[in-house]
């Protein structure tokens, strides 16, 4: 028996956008922390080797920023992303926790190492020798990178579960087809963010003259060099993801294509500036430009995360769970018993429905559609179906996974489908006070026929998964 959870309304935003907003901020901060650890090790090494007389001073200033931004906002948005995921899709986060809780618990032990080594360095590094400081920074850097290593395996499993689908082995799920390109790509992003943040921090060190600041920026720019590998890793990643997902990213879905383009364009701009301006021409970068590049990096991160989330459609975990928290193997049963059969939660709010069918339709919308759609806000059903005729709407929804392959199959009875159609029509008409109940047996029979023709399998094939 599936568990049905209460659903909250985030109108006019769709829940996915709320999740995306929190996730993007957290990913940006977390990757900054990961790269920051490596960058600090590099500068500590420079200080110990006498290669830059200002490196020690920089390490001190940069670590304060890391503590104030990453240890606070990074840690709390990490908890926040868990809470948000529960708000949006408890079934998805529940499945992730269920399958990978020991790895998540392992990641927690690395969080503890991060916090312990980081704060020991923060409090005592002025009273410690170089080797002890370097050891603490190295432990911090390794622990933060391992936390990326672990979460990368869990997140990439959502899109490319690979052999896990057959074996259910944690190792197969974790080291899934997109694990390595994704990990390497994220590691380079982390270095990039850390280096750009370093350029901003250096510009706030007013006690240093311009020459000193320039020398630090030149060193930080070394961490931007791995960006040259990004195109290769991006292509590798695209090659590993399912063909349908790749198709949507590369033009099938204009929105995803747009976000991918933003991400690529922003990354190219940063890479070109780093390579030509900082590395080849050895230019100075002022605080405003460094901040602008960091904002561009935020844009690239946002675009990339949007694409990564969107590419999973119609699943939240590929071939395990649809975006609307219905499991593929549940669809056939729900076609018979109805998607509301297990839902104990009434409709809430002050909407007065002219008949019971509309209230049922609203609950069907809430159960099956509201995770990605609103009624008349972002990705609103009223707008998306505005040009469809009544029968066309019935057929398109009944054959949803064929209407659009990134949609899941309709998981309810013909009566529920008709109630949803009536609800959309009624909402589009402005919520009139009188509305006829639609229960024509011939209509329901037609819907039943379309549902049977559509089948209960997803519109995307399992075979195209590498």
């Amino acid at each position: 028996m599936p568990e049905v959870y209460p659903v909250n309304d985030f109108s006019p935003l769709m829940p996915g956008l709320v999740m995306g907003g929190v996730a993007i901020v957290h990913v940006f901060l977390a990757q900054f922390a990961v790269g920051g650890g490596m960058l600090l090790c590099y500068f500590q090494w420079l200080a110990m080797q006498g290669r830059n007389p200002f490196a020690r001073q920089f390490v001190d200033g940069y670590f304060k920023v890391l503590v104030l931004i990453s240890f606070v906002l990074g840690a709390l948005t990490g908890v926040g992303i868990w809470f948000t995921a529960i708000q949006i899709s408890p079934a998805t986060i529940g499945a992730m926790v269920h399958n990978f809780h020991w790895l998540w618990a392992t990641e927690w032990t690395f969080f503890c190492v991060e916090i312990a080594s980081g704060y020991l360095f923060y409090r005592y590094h002025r009273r410690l020798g170089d080797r002890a400081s370097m050891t603490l920074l190295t432990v911090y850097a390794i622990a933060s990178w391992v936390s990326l290593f672990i979460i990368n395996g869990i997140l990439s499993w959502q899109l490319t579960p690979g052999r896990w689908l057959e074996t259910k082995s944690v190792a197969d799920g974790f080291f899934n087809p997109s694990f390595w390109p994704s990990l390497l790509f994220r590691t380079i992003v982390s270095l990039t963010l850390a280096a750009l943040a370093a350029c901003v921090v250096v510009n706030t060190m007013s006690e240093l003259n311009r020459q000193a600041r320039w020398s630090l920026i030149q060193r930080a720019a070394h961490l931007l060099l791995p960006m040259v590998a990004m195109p290769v890793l991006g292509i590798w990643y695209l090659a590993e993801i399912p063909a349908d997902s790749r198709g949507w990213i590369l033009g099938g879905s204009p929105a995803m294509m747009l976000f991918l383009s933003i991400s690529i364009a922003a990354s190219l701009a940063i890479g070109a500036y780093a390579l030509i301006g900082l590395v080849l021409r050895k230019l100075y970068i002022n605080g405003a430009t460094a901040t602008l590049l960091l904002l561009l990096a935020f844009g690239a991160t946002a675009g990339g995360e949007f694409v990564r989330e969107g590419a999973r459609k119609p699943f939240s975990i590929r071939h395990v769970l649809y975006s609307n928290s219905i499991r593929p193997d549940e669809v056939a049963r729900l076609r018979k018993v109805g998607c509301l059969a297990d839902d104990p939660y009434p409709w809430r709010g002050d909407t007065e429905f002219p008949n019971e069918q509309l209230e049922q339709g609203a609950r069907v919308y809430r159960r099956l559609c509201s995770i990605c759609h609103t009624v008349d806000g972002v990705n609103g059903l009223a707008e998306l179906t505005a040009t469809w005729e009544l029968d066309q709407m019935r057929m398109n929804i009944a054959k949803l996974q064929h209407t659009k392959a990134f949609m899941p199959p309709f998981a309810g009875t013909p009566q529920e489908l008709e109630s949803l159609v009536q609800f959309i029509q009624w909402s589009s008409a402005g919520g009139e006070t009188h509305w006829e109940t639609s229960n024509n047996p011939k209509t329901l029979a037609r819907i039943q026929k379309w549902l049977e023709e559509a089948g209960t399998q997803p519109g995307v094939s399992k075979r195209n998964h590498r």
Partner: protein
Amino acid sequence: MDSTFPVGFPMPTALYLVLYVATFIIHQALVGYVVAGSLYVAWATIAPGRGDTPRAEQPLASALRDWLPFVLSATITAGVAPLLFIQIVYPRHFYTANLLLSWRWMIVIPVLITAFYLLYLIKGATFSKWSYQVRAAVVLAVAACFLFVGFCWTANHLVANNESAWPEVYASGNVSLSATLVALRMLVWVGGACASMAVIAGWQLAAQSGSPSSQPIAVEIRRLARFSLGGLALASAAATAYLLQSDQAVSLSTLRVFALPYVVAAVIGVLVQAAAWAMQWRLGMNRRLLAMASFGYILALVGASVLRETVRLASVDIAELYQRNADAAAVGGFSVFLVFVVLNVAVITGCIWIVQKGIRKL
């Protein structure tokens, strides 16, 4: 439940319950320091006293101001583990309570972020130079933030345990909680927090000074003793009242069989702490008495945490979750976790050793 916690459960459920309670205990010890510490700093700032040195600048408040940001960070990190295991043991209850509380639950994140940054302001060197009104507003805001977060957790816990009310709570949007039960749980929590902070801060003061019997430290230890004794009295009275008031089917027979050793541990722990602090109040700082208070604190915390879980277990149908827990236990990765627990405890110990050695060398 006819055997002692956690023996009465199938192995997977027992394992997850033990892990949840164990990690919750670590988290709760740190929570206590943060909550009571911020309350103490608030009091010390608002009532500076008549001495030459204002209370907020004296050793105890100074140590708290210095360490609170780090301990909050450690608290949040420590909280990740029980947050993970609660999703294995009681997924349906925890998720549903989150969803029913909705924004009233999500708001804990911005509130904690606010408190975090305010703690850094309080730690800052310029804080003491600000006007009295601004300092009072900041310390009160921090304490209020933590009390609010505690209230949200209490609400979450109570909603999660009241399954029959879920559809009605969803439909109405109103979370009707018993004010008495909420108040009593909060009082247990705040009282326990005082005991927690007293023990940890006591060791901080002991480590801070070469001669712990020095005058300022002795004064601070007496203050901590009063703080702890008051907290223990408050928590004990509120816990007793809660168990008498509770309508959550927590029968005495359940407690007698299922959690009797933990009830005994909690009572002994409170008595040992009270005795240790009473003697410290009379004799001043003494490391043996501090160790005795710490032992009593650990006993009481373990006992109280299992009792808290007993109350929850009496109100949920845990048997319904046995199969799910068994499925979760069948998922691989446990050995990876065990290896890295040992390894990373060693790494953290090594880091502390490196720092101690490094400081001594210089």
